[in-house]
Protein backbone atom coordinates (compact mmCIF):
# COMPACT_ATOMS: atom_id res chain seq x y z
CA UNK A 1 0.00 0.00 0.00
CA UNK A 2 1.25 3.47 -0.80
CA UNK A 3 1.68 6.08 1.89
CA UNK A 4 -0.70 8.41 0.05
CA UNK A 5 -3.54 5.91 0.42
CA UNK A 6 -2.93 4.97 4.04
CA UNK A 7 -5.31 7.52 5.53
CA UNK A 8 -7.87 4.88 6.43
CA UNK A 9 -5.52 3.51 9.06
CA UNK A 10 -4.63 6.89 10.55
CA UNK A 11 -7.76 8.23 12.17
CA UNK A 12 -8.76 9.69 15.50
CA UNK A 13 -11.55 7.11 15.43
CA UNK A 14 -9.06 4.29 15.09
CA UNK A 15 -8.69 1.96 12.14
CA UNK A 16 -11.44 2.67 9.63
CA UNK A 17 -10.56 -0.07 7.16
CA UNK A 18 -13.28 -2.43 8.40
CA UNK A 19 -15.97 0.11 7.45
CA UNK A 20 -18.57 -1.42 5.13
CA UNK A 21 -18.63 0.65 1.93
CA UNK A 22 -21.11 0.46 -0.95
CA UNK A 23 -20.34 1.84 -4.42
CA UNK A 24 -23.41 2.57 -6.56
CA UNK A 25 -22.59 3.35 -10.20
CA UNK A 26 -24.23 2.04 -13.34
CA UNK A 27 -20.81 1.98 -15.05
CA UNK A 28 -19.17 -1.23 -13.90
CA UNK A 29 -15.69 0.05 -14.85
CA UNK A 30 -16.09 2.92 -12.39
CA UNK A 31 -17.13 0.41 -9.75
CA UNK A 32 -14.14 -1.75 -10.50
CA UNK A 33 -11.58 1.03 -10.26
CA UNK A 34 -13.12 2.35 -7.06
CA UNK A 35 -12.98 -1.10 -5.50
CA UNK A 36 -9.36 -1.37 -6.50
CA UNK A 37 -8.51 2.06 -5.04
CA UNK A 38 -10.32 1.39 -1.77
CA UNK A 39 -8.81 -2.04 -1.34
CA UNK A 40 -5.38 -0.62 -1.98
CA UNK A 41 -6.13 1.90 0.76
CA UNK A 42 -6.87 -0.97 3.13
CA UNK A 43 -10.67 -1.05 3.06
CA UNK A 44 -11.66 -4.68 3.37
CA UNK A 45 -15.44 -4.54 2.97
CA UNK A 46 -16.27 -2.90 -0.38
CA UNK A 47 -19.40 -3.83 -2.35
CA UNK A 48 -20.41 -2.58 -5.80
CA UNK A 49 -23.94 -2.30 -7.14
CA UNK A 50 -24.74 -1.20 -10.70
CA UNK A 51 -28.50 -1.38 -10.22
CA UNK A 52 -29.70 1.53 -8.04
CA UNK A 53 -32.87 -0.29 -6.90
CA UNK A 54 -30.83 -3.30 -5.79
CA UNK A 55 -28.55 -0.88 -3.91
CA UNK A 56 -31.52 0.51 -2.00
CA UNK A 57 -32.60 -3.04 -1.14
CA UNK A 58 -29.10 -3.81 0.12
CA UNK A 59 -29.16 -0.79 2.37
CA UNK A 60 -32.36 -2.06 3.99
CA UNK A 61 -30.50 -5.12 5.21
CA UNK A 62 -27.07 -3.70 5.88
CA UNK A 63 -25.81 -0.62 7.65
CA UNK A 64 -23.09 0.82 5.40
CA UNK A 65 -20.65 3.31 6.87
CA UNK A 66 -20.37 4.98 3.47
CA UNK A 67 -22.23 4.96 0.16
CA UNK A 68 -20.40 6.27 -2.91
CA UNK A 69 -23.25 7.22 -5.20
CA UNK A 70 -23.28 8.20 -8.86
CA UNK A 71 -25.81 10.94 -9.59
CA UNK A 72 -26.56 10.38 -13.26
CA UNK A 73 -27.87 6.90 -13.85
CA UNK A 74 -30.58 5.73 -16.26
CA UNK A 75 -34.06 4.86 -14.91
CA UNK A 76 -33.32 5.67 -11.27
CA UNK A 77 -30.87 8.49 -10.66
CA UNK A 78 -28.84 9.30 -7.56
CA UNK A 79 -31.41 11.81 -6.28
CA UNK A 80 -34.13 9.17 -6.30
CA UNK A 81 -31.80 6.74 -4.54
CA UNK A 82 -31.16 9.31 -1.81
CA UNK A 83 -34.91 9.90 -1.43
CA UNK A 84 -35.54 6.17 -1.09
CA UNK A 85 -32.73 5.79 1.43
CA UNK A 86 -34.06 8.74 3.45
CA UNK A 87 -37.44 7.02 3.81
CA UNK A 88 -35.84 4.13 5.61
CA UNK A 89 -33.66 6.29 7.82
CA UNK A 90 -34.52 7.79 11.21
CA UNK A 91 -34.45 11.57 11.49
CA UNK A 92 -31.41 11.39 13.78
CA UNK A 93 -29.46 8.99 11.57
CA UNK A 94 -26.40 10.29 9.78
CA UNK A 95 -26.69 9.90 6.01
CA UNK A 96 -23.30 8.58 4.85
CA UNK A 97 -23.49 9.52 1.17
CA UNK A 98 -20.54 10.64 -0.95
CA UNK A 99 -21.72 11.74 -4.38
CA UNK A 100 -19.66 10.92 -7.48
CA UNK A 101 -20.42 13.19 -10.40
CA UNK A 102 -18.95 15.01 -13.34
CA UNK A 103 -21.71 17.59 -13.05
CA UNK A 104 -20.89 19.95 -10.20
CA UNK A 105 -23.16 22.84 -11.12
CA UNK A 106 -24.33 24.81 -8.09
CA UNK A 107 -27.98 23.82 -8.45
CA UNK A 108 -27.00 20.15 -8.72
CA UNK A 109 -24.87 20.38 -5.58
CA UNK A 110 -27.58 22.18 -3.66
CA UNK A 111 -30.17 19.57 -4.59
CA UNK A 112 -27.80 16.74 -3.69
CA UNK A 113 -27.00 18.28 -0.30
CA UNK A 114 -30.70 18.76 0.40
CA UNK A 115 -31.28 15.10 -0.48
CA UNK A 116 -28.72 13.82 2.02
CA UNK A 117 -25.34 14.05 0.28
CA UNK A 118 -22.47 14.86 2.65
CA UNK A 119 -19.68 15.45 0.18
CA UNK A 120 -18.76 15.29 -3.51
CA UNK A 121 -16.02 13.78 -5.64
CA UNK A 122 -15.75 15.01 -9.19
CA UNK A 123 -15.32 12.52 -12.00
CA UNK A 124 -12.78 11.74 -13.22
CA UNK A 125 -11.38 11.53 -9.71
CA UNK A 126 -7.93 11.11 -8.24
CA UNK A 127 -7.47 8.04 -5.98
CA UNK A 128 -5.96 10.00 -3.08
CA UNK A 129 -8.88 12.44 -3.05
CA UNK A 130 -11.47 9.65 -3.05
CA UNK A 131 -9.76 7.92 -0.13
CA UNK A 132 -9.38 11.16 1.85
CA UNK A 133 -13.01 12.14 1.42
CA UNK A 134 -14.23 8.63 2.18
CA UNK A 135 -12.13 8.53 5.34
CA UNK A 136 -13.62 11.83 6.50
CA UNK A 137 -17.13 10.56 5.86
CA UNK A 138 -16.62 7.30 7.75
CA UNK A 139 -14.91 9.11 10.60
CA UNK A 140 -17.78 11.62 10.91
CA UNK A 141 -20.37 8.87 10.80
CA UNK A 142 -18.62 6.90 13.53
CA UNK A 143 -18.31 10.02 15.68
CA UNK A 144 -22.00 10.69 15.12
CA UNK A 145 -22.84 7.13 16.13
CA UNK A 146 -20.65 7.34 19.22
CA UNK A 147 -22.28 10.63 20.19
CA UNK A 148 -25.74 9.12 19.83
CA UNK A 149 -24.76 6.15 21.91
CA UNK A 150 -23.30 8.48 24.53
CA UNK A 151 -26.48 10.58 24.50
CA UNK A 152 -28.64 7.51 24.95
CA UNK A 153 -26.56 6.34 27.89
CA UNK A 154 -26.67 9.83 29.34
CA UNK A 155 -30.46 9.99 28.99
CA UNK A 156 -30.78 6.69 30.85
CA UNK A 157 -28.51 7.94 33.64
CA UNK A 158 -30.42 11.21 33.92
CA UNK A 159 -33.72 9.29 34.06
CA UNK A 160 -32.34 7.03 36.80
CA UNK A 161 -31.07 9.96 38.83
CA UNK A 162 -34.34 11.87 38.35
CA UNK A 163 -36.30 8.84 39.55
CA UNK A 164 -34.06 8.67 42.62
CA UNK A 165 -34.59 12.35 43.37
CA UNK A 166 -38.37 12.01 42.95
CA UNK A 167 -38.43 8.93 45.21
CA UNK A 168 -36.34 10.75 47.82
CA UNK A 169 -38.63 13.77 47.65
CA UNK A 170 -41.73 11.63 48.14
CA UNK A 171 -40.16 9.79 51.03
CA UNK A 172 -39.27 13.05 52.74
CA UNK A 173 -42.82 14.30 52.24
CA UNK A 174 -44.26 11.10 53.65
CA UNK A 175 -42.03 11.24 56.70
CA UNK A 176 -42.83 14.90 57.21
CA UNK A 177 -46.55 14.15 57.01
CA UNK A 178 -46.06 11.32 59.50
CA UNK A 179 -44.35 13.74 61.87
CA UNK A 180 -47.43 15.97 61.77
CA UNK A 181 -49.73 13.08 62.59
CA UNK A 182 -47.42 11.27 64.97
CA UNK A 183 -49.01 12.19 68.25
CA UNK A 184 -52.62 11.38 67.37
CA UNK A 185 -52.06 8.73 64.69
CA UNK A 186 -49.02 6.59 65.39
CA UNK A 187 -49.32 4.71 62.12
CA UNK A 188 -49.35 7.89 60.04
CA UNK A 189 -51.88 6.22 57.79
CA UNK A 190 -54.48 8.96 58.03
CA UNK A 191 -52.26 11.36 56.12
CA UNK A 192 -51.53 8.79 53.43
CA UNK A 193 -55.20 7.83 53.10
CA UNK A 194 -56.19 11.48 52.76
CA UNK A 195 -53.56 11.83 50.05
CA UNK A 196 -54.85 8.85 48.14
CA UNK A 197 -58.50 9.86 48.41
CA UNK A 198 -57.64 13.42 47.38
CA UNK A 199 -55.95 12.00 44.29
CA UNK A 200 -59.05 9.93 43.49
CA UNK A 201 -61.33 12.94 43.95
CA UNK A 202 -59.09 15.09 41.76
CA UNK A 203 -59.22 12.51 38.98
CA UNK A 204 -62.97 12.13 39.38
CA UNK A 205 -63.19 15.92 38.92
CA UNK A 206 -61.26 15.49 35.64
CA UNK A 207 -58.36 17.62 36.84
CA UNK A 208 -55.35 17.15 34.60
CA UNK A 209 -53.14 14.22 35.53
CA UNK A 210 -50.11 16.22 36.59
CA UNK A 211 -52.08 18.41 38.98
CA UNK A 212 -54.02 15.44 40.37
CA UNK A 213 -50.75 13.70 41.19
CA UNK A 214 -49.48 16.85 42.85
CA UNK A 215 -52.60 17.12 45.00
CA UNK A 216 -52.26 13.46 45.95
CA UNK A 217 -48.64 13.98 46.99
CA UNK A 218 -49.22 17.28 48.81
CA UNK A 219 -52.43 16.36 50.65
CA UNK A 220 -50.73 14.20 53.33
CA UNK A 221 -49.11 17.38 54.64
CA UNK A 222 -52.44 19.03 55.37
CA UNK A 223 -52.04 18.72 59.17
CA UNK A 224 -48.29 19.33 59.36
CA UNK A 225 -49.05 22.40 61.50
CA UNK A 226 -50.22 20.14 64.33
CA UNK A 227 -46.56 19.87 65.23
CA UNK A 228 -47.02 23.25 66.86
CA UNK A 229 -50.10 22.31 68.90
CA UNK A 230 -49.34 21.32 72.53
CA UNK A 231 -50.05 17.70 73.53
CA UNK A 232 -52.38 18.85 76.27
CA UNK A 233 -54.72 20.28 73.66
CA UNK A 234 -54.17 17.90 70.75
CA UNK A 235 -54.64 14.77 72.85
CA UNK A 236 -57.27 16.15 75.22
CA UNK A 237 -60.09 13.66 75.75
CA UNK A 238 -62.87 16.06 76.71
CA UNK A 239 -64.36 19.17 75.16
CA UNK A 240 -61.97 22.00 74.26
CA UNK A 241 -62.19 25.44 75.75
CA UNK A 242 -62.66 28.42 73.47
CA UNK A 243 -58.99 29.29 73.87
CA UNK A 244 -57.94 25.73 73.05
CA UNK A 245 -60.07 25.78 69.93
CA UNK A 246 -58.28 28.94 68.82
CA UNK A 247 -54.94 27.26 69.45
CA UNK A 248 -55.84 24.11 67.56
CA UNK A 249 -57.20 26.12 64.66
CA UNK A 250 -53.87 27.85 64.46
CA UNK A 251 -52.39 24.62 63.01
CA UNK A 252 -53.53 25.80 59.57
CA UNK A 253 -51.40 28.93 59.78
CA UNK A 254 -48.50 27.03 61.31
CA UNK A 255 -48.64 24.37 58.58
CA UNK A 256 -48.65 27.02 55.86
CA UNK A 257 -45.75 28.81 57.57
CA UNK A 258 -43.72 25.57 57.70
CA UNK A 259 -44.30 24.98 53.99
CA UNK A 260 -44.03 28.58 52.82
CA UNK A 261 -41.26 30.08 50.74
CA UNK A 262 -40.62 27.05 48.56
CA UNK A 263 -40.04 27.37 44.83
CA UNK A 264 -41.44 23.88 44.28
CA UNK A 265 -44.99 23.67 42.93
CA UNK A 266 -45.57 20.67 45.16
CA UNK A 267 -44.67 22.61 48.30
CA UNK A 268 -46.73 25.59 47.21
CA UNK A 269 -49.71 23.27 46.70
CA UNK A 270 -49.11 21.73 50.12
CA UNK A 271 -48.97 25.21 51.65
CA UNK A 272 -52.36 26.13 50.14
CA UNK A 273 -53.84 22.86 51.37
CA UNK A 274 -52.48 23.29 54.91
CA UNK A 275 -53.92 26.80 55.07
CA UNK A 276 -57.35 26.16 53.55
CA UNK A 277 -58.47 22.59 54.26
CA UNK A 278 -60.71 23.76 57.11
CA UNK A 279 -62.43 26.49 55.11
CA UNK A 280 -66.15 25.97 54.45
CA UNK A 281 -67.97 26.47 51.17
CA UNK A 282 -70.36 28.92 52.91
CA UNK A 283 -67.52 30.99 54.38
CA UNK A 284 -67.95 29.79 57.97
CA UNK A 285 -64.76 27.78 58.15
CA UNK A 286 -61.35 28.83 59.38
CA UNK A 287 -58.78 30.37 59.48
CA UNK A 288 -59.72 33.07 56.93
CA UNK A 289 -63.42 32.50 56.40
CA UNK A 290 -62.95 32.06 52.64
CA UNK A 291 -66.00 30.97 50.67
CA UNK A 292 -66.78 29.09 47.48
CA UNK A 293 -64.19 29.67 44.75
CA UNK A 294 -62.06 31.80 47.06
CA UNK A 295 -61.01 28.47 48.56
CA UNK A 296 -58.34 26.88 46.37
CA UNK A 297 -59.52 23.70 44.67
CA UNK A 298 -56.89 21.66 46.50
CA UNK A 299 -58.24 22.88 49.83
CA UNK A 300 -61.82 22.02 48.85
CA UNK A 301 -60.79 18.53 47.85
CA UNK A 302 -58.71 17.79 50.95
CA UNK A 303 -61.49 19.13 53.15
CA UNK A 304 -63.80 16.36 51.91
CA UNK A 305 -61.11 13.68 51.93
CA UNK A 306 -60.05 14.60 55.49
CA UNK A 307 -63.63 14.53 56.76
CA UNK A 308 -64.39 11.21 55.09
CA UNK A 309 -61.25 9.53 56.40
CA UNK A 310 -61.74 10.90 59.92
CA UNK A 311 -65.27 9.49 60.02
CA UNK A 312 -64.41 6.08 58.61
CA UNK A 313 -61.50 5.38 60.95
CA UNK A 314 -61.36 4.99 64.70
CA UNK A 315 -60.46 8.06 66.75
CA UNK A 316 -59.68 8.23 70.48
CA UNK A 317 -63.04 9.87 71.09
CA UNK A 318 -65.26 7.81 68.75
CA UNK A 319 -65.56 4.66 66.67
CA UNK A 320 -65.34 4.55 62.90
CA UNK A 321 -68.53 4.64 60.88
CA UNK A 322 -69.24 2.98 57.54
CA UNK A 323 -68.39 4.58 54.20
CA UNK A 324 -72.11 4.72 53.46
CA UNK A 325 -72.77 6.64 56.66
CA UNK A 326 -69.83 8.99 56.08
CA UNK A 327 -70.93 9.78 52.53
CA UNK A 328 -74.48 10.45 53.75
CA UNK A 329 -73.14 12.79 56.42
CA UNK A 330 -70.90 14.66 53.96
CA UNK A 331 -73.77 14.87 51.48
CA UNK A 332 -75.79 16.54 54.22
CA UNK A 333 -73.23 19.35 54.31
CA UNK A 334 -73.01 19.68 50.53
CA UNK A 335 -73.05 23.37 49.60
CA UNK A 336 -72.59 24.52 53.21
CA UNK A 337 -69.39 23.00 54.58
CA UNK A 338 -68.25 21.18 51.47
CA UNK A 339 -67.90 22.17 47.81
CA UNK A 340 -70.82 20.65 45.86
CA UNK A 341 -68.75 19.31 42.98
CA UNK A 342 -66.27 17.60 45.32
CA UNK A 343 -69.11 15.98 47.27
CA UNK A 344 -70.59 14.78 43.98
CA UNK A 345 -67.24 13.30 43.06
CA UNK A 346 -67.13 11.50 46.43
CA UNK A 347 -70.61 10.07 45.80
CA UNK A 348 -69.48 8.90 42.39
CA UNK A 349 -66.46 7.15 43.90
CA UNK A 350 -68.74 5.59 46.51
CA UNK A 351 -71.11 4.29 43.83
CA UNK A 352 -68.13 2.87 41.97
CA UNK A 353 -67.22 0.92 45.09
CA UNK A 354 -63.92 2.71 45.54
CA UNK A 355 -64.62 3.89 49.10
CA UNK A 356 -65.96 0.78 50.79
CA UNK A 357 -63.58 -1.06 53.12
CA UNK A 358 -63.13 -4.50 51.63
CA UNK A 359 -60.19 -6.78 50.87
CA UNK A 360 -60.38 -5.86 47.18
CA UNK A 361 -60.60 -2.13 47.73
CA UNK A 362 -56.88 -1.56 47.34
CA UNK A 363 -56.95 -3.39 44.04
CA UNK A 364 -59.84 -1.33 42.71
CA UNK A 365 -58.23 1.91 43.82
CA UNK A 366 -55.04 0.91 42.01
CA UNK A 367 -57.06 0.05 38.88
CA UNK A 368 -58.89 3.37 38.98
CA UNK A 369 -55.63 5.28 39.30
CA UNK A 370 -54.06 3.35 36.45
CA UNK A 371 -57.09 4.05 34.25
CA UNK A 372 -57.06 7.76 35.14
CA UNK A 373 -53.38 8.09 34.29
Amino acid at each position, binding site marked *: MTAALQGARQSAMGDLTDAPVLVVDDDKNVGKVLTR*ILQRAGFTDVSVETDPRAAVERCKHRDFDAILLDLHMPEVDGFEVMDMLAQGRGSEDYSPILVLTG*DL*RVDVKERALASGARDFVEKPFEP*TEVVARLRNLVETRRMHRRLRSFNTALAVRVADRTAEVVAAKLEVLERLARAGEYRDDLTGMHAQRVGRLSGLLARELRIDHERAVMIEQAAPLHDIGKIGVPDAILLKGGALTEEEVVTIRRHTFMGAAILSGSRLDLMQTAERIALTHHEHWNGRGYPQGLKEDEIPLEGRIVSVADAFDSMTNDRPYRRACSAERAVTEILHWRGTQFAPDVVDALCQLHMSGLLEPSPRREERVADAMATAS
Partner: protein
Amino acid sequence: MSTMTETIDTSGAADAPEAMTLQLRRLVHDLNNALTPILANAQLAQLILGPDSSVSAELDDVVAGAKRANAIVGEIRTAATRLAEAQT
Protein backbone atom coordinates in the same frame (compact mmCIF):
# COMPACT_ATOMS: atom_id res chain seq x y z
CA MET B 1 -24.41 3.63 -19.98
CA SER B 2 -25.23 4.59 -23.57
CA THR B 3 -22.86 4.09 -26.47
CA MET B 4 -21.37 7.04 -28.32
CA THR B 5 -23.63 6.50 -31.34
CA GLU B 6 -26.64 6.46 -29.06
CA THR B 7 -25.48 9.64 -27.42
CA ILE B 8 -25.03 11.61 -30.63
CA ASP B 9 -28.38 11.77 -32.31
CA THR B 10 -27.92 11.84 -36.10
CA SER B 11 -31.63 11.84 -36.89
CA GLY B 12 -31.85 15.61 -37.20
CA ALA B 13 -33.80 16.09 -33.96
CA ALA B 14 -30.64 17.48 -32.47
CA ASP B 15 -31.12 20.62 -34.53
CA ALA B 16 -33.33 21.95 -31.79
CA PRO B 17 -31.13 23.89 -29.32
CA GLU B 18 -32.69 22.22 -26.28
CA ALA B 19 -32.07 18.76 -27.69
CA MET B 20 -28.52 19.79 -28.57
CA THR B 21 -27.89 20.92 -24.97
CA LEU B 22 -29.24 17.67 -23.62
CA GLN B 23 -27.10 15.65 -26.01
CA LEU B 24 -23.98 17.58 -25.10
CA ARG B 25 -24.62 16.90 -21.43
CA ARG B 26 -25.05 13.19 -22.09
CA LEU B 27 -21.83 13.23 -24.10
CA VAL B 28 -19.98 14.92 -21.23
CA HIS B 29 -21.36 12.39 -18.76
CA ASP B 30 -20.34 9.40 -20.89
CA LEU B 31 -16.90 10.82 -21.61
CA ASN B 32 -16.43 11.41 -17.91
CA ASN B 33 -17.35 7.83 -17.13
CA ALA B 34 -14.99 6.60 -19.82
CA LEU B 35 -12.13 8.76 -18.58
CA THR B 36 -12.63 7.91 -14.92
CA PRO B 37 -11.16 4.37 -14.96
CA ILE B 38 -8.38 5.42 -17.34
CA LEU B 39 -7.18 8.27 -15.17
CA ALA B 40 -7.82 6.54 -11.83
CA ASN B 41 -6.12 3.30 -12.83
CA ALA B 42 -3.12 5.14 -14.23
CA GLN B 43 -2.79 7.24 -11.08
CA LEU B 44 -3.25 4.20 -8.90
CA ALA B 45 -0.50 2.46 -10.83
CA GLN B 46 1.74 5.49 -10.32
CA LEU B 47 1.11 5.36 -6.59
CA ILE B 48 1.78 1.64 -6.41
CA LEU B 49 4.92 1.59 -8.60
CA GLY B 50 6.37 4.89 -7.48
CA PRO B 51 8.34 7.44 -9.51
CA ASP B 52 11.30 5.11 -10.13
CA SER B 53 9.27 2.52 -11.99
CA SER B 54 10.39 1.42 -15.44
CA VAL B 55 6.96 2.39 -16.80
CA SER B 56 6.82 5.70 -15.00
CA ALA B 57 7.17 7.78 -18.17
CA GLU B 58 4.43 5.80 -19.93
CA LEU B 59 2.07 6.22 -16.97
CA ASP B 60 2.82 9.93 -16.88
CA ASP B 61 1.79 10.13 -20.53
CA VAL B 62 -1.45 8.25 -19.87
CA VAL B 63 -2.32 10.58 -16.99
CA ALA B 64 -1.40 13.66 -18.98
CA GLY B 65 -3.47 12.45 -21.94
CA ALA B 66 -6.46 11.67 -19.75
CA LYS B 67 -6.21 15.09 -18.11
CA ARG B 68 -6.04 16.74 -21.52
CA ALA B 69 -9.14 14.80 -22.57
CA ASN B 70 -10.81 15.86 -19.32
CA ALA B 71 -10.04 19.48 -20.10
CA ILE B 72 -11.73 19.07 -23.48
CA VAL B 73 -14.75 17.55 -21.75
CA GLY B 74 -14.79 20.63 -19.54
CA GLU B 75 -14.88 22.86 -22.62
CA ILE B 76 -17.81 20.88 -24.03
CA ARG B 77 -19.60 21.22 -20.67
CA THR B 78 -19.05 24.99 -20.74
CA ALA B 79 -20.40 25.16 -24.26
CA ALA B 80 -23.48 23.19 -23.22
CA THR B 81 -24.04 25.55 -20.30
CA ARG B 82 -23.74 28.63 -22.55
CA LEU B 83 -26.12 27.09 -25.02
CA ALA B 84 -28.64 26.45 -22.26
CA GLU B 85 -28.29 30.02 -21.00
CA ALA B 86 -28.76 31.39 -24.52
CA GLN B 87 -32.04 29.48 -24.76
CA THR B 88 -33.36 31.15 -21.61
